[in-house]
């Protein structure tokens, strides 16, 4: 049975009252994330995997690596594909069926966070240029939808990639053949960290929980890299942000991002 949950009917005014005093319903400060735990190697059969729990949200991500054909025009790069699925057991309102626009957006935002930061050097994942490359599939299964799926999914995907092992292939008769027992570390160039913030009234809060998402005005997800650059952004929600707010958000994303990056670096 679900633990005690403050239902989405919560009056916004009451949440705003608490926010004026710098408080949130679960006792956090405005820029505090919920407790975050990251475990890697949870699916030994996959090439890489991670389970992340961020507050009430839980995600299991697996990395599968296998030879593939390159995209046309991109014959000198390996393939990277991110998908996500909100499992029906994760949320009473989830329905099995083709992915919703919400989860498609989620997968594409996580994908861009990894791709735009150039986390992986895809040039190092070529077997035969223009013909055969290494394909990396990062699939996230959301097992408990408890708010801020963007960050949890991103941390799980990045952690699974950081800790994965890449099989070795040699070319025989123009085709890739697996070399058993030989693996290498993935070609990591930088570590992307996503930080999602919600605006409720004039207040910016980090890592919104489900009920905060239910009454937020707008949302901003910002992904930064190890070098301190801002590489991917997604604004969501029905309202907007002022210029000052988006700048403030970028500062928060950099400082919170640095903290999370320390946790992720240990996984390499």
């Amino acid at each position, binding site marked *: *049975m679900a633990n*005690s*949950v*403050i*239902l989405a*009917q919560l009056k916004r005014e009451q949440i705003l*009252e608490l926010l004026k005093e710098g*408080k949130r319903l679960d006792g956090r400060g405005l820029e505090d994330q919920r407790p975050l735990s990251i475990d890697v190697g949870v699916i030994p059969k996959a090439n890489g995997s991670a389970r992340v729990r961020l507050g009430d949200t839980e995600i299991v991500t697996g990395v599968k690596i296998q030879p593939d054909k390159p995209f046309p025009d991109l014959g000198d790069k390996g393939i990277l594909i991110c998908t996500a699925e909100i499992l029906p057991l994760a949320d009473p309102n989830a329905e099995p069926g083709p992915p919703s626009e919400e989860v498609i957006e989620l997968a594409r935002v996580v994908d861009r966070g990894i791709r735009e930061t150039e986390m992986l050097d895809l040039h190092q994942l070529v077997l035969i240029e223009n013909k055969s490359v290494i394909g990396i599939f990062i699939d996230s299964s959301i097992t408990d939808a408890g708010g801020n799926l963007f960050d949890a999914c991103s941390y799980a995907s990045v952690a699974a990639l950081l800790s994965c092992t890449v099989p070795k292939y040699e070319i025989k008769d123009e085709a890739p053949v697996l070399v058993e027992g030989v693996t290498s570390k993935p070609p990591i160039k930088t570590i992307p960290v996503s930080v999602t913030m919600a605006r409720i009234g004039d207040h910016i809060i980090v890592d919104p929980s489900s009920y905060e998402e239910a009454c937020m005005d707008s949302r901003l997800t910002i992904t930064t890299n190890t070098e301190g650059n801002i590489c991917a952004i997604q604004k969501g929600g029905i309202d907007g942000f002022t210029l000052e707010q988006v700048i403030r958000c970028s500062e928060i994303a950099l400082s919170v991002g640095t903290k999370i990056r320390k946790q992720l670096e240990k996984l390499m």
Partner: protein
Amino acid sequence: MMETKRRYVIPGDVITTGPFRPEQNVYQEGDRIISTSVGISEIFDNAVRVIPLTGIYMPKTNDLIIGKVIGHSSLSWEFDINSCFVGFLPAQDVFGRDYSPTKDELKERLDKGDLVAARVANFDRSRDPLLTVQDRDLGKIESGELIEISPSKVPRLIGKRGSMIQTIEMATKAMITIGQNGWIVVSSEDPDGLLKAIEAIRMVDAQAHMPNLTERVKSMLGVELGDNNDTINE
């Protein structure tokens, strides 16, 4: 006084055999009386029942519940009562028998999203439960936070003779209305008191089946541990 025999059971456990009356959450197979739930079995007075430790709210006549308005016709309001059944409050319960209100008049009294403290007037499985607000302390709830706990934990939250809920109310200065359906409304003028009350309720929900819960709740609230220990085991 007949002793009550108690045991922890899971579905499929044979509680006893012989000429006993099967009551709640058990069934009879031949002469075996078997539990259908995870809970505590009781044999008393030639009857056998199981008190479940989990499960959704099943309405019972006379239960005090918190409901949320989800719609209305010109004859009644419909309520979400945290069950697979929808609660109905007839318009005449509020307006009286002689008055035929319009749909708009109903909407003005109670609109979608409004919380109400009500009693289950009648429930049998063939129809949805009928509600009433015709008692003192029943009716629309003007302010407060709605919190959901597992309905099976409600007795623990109340405590023996109300001791647990009184402890929480006094320590936090919050007013707490408990619905048997697991919905609780907490209101307080003091935001800190509100947060503490919510935390205490969450603790009970998470730890209801563990011993020494009262001490832990009191300790969290900063209350002195007196010798008034409530040791109800449900």
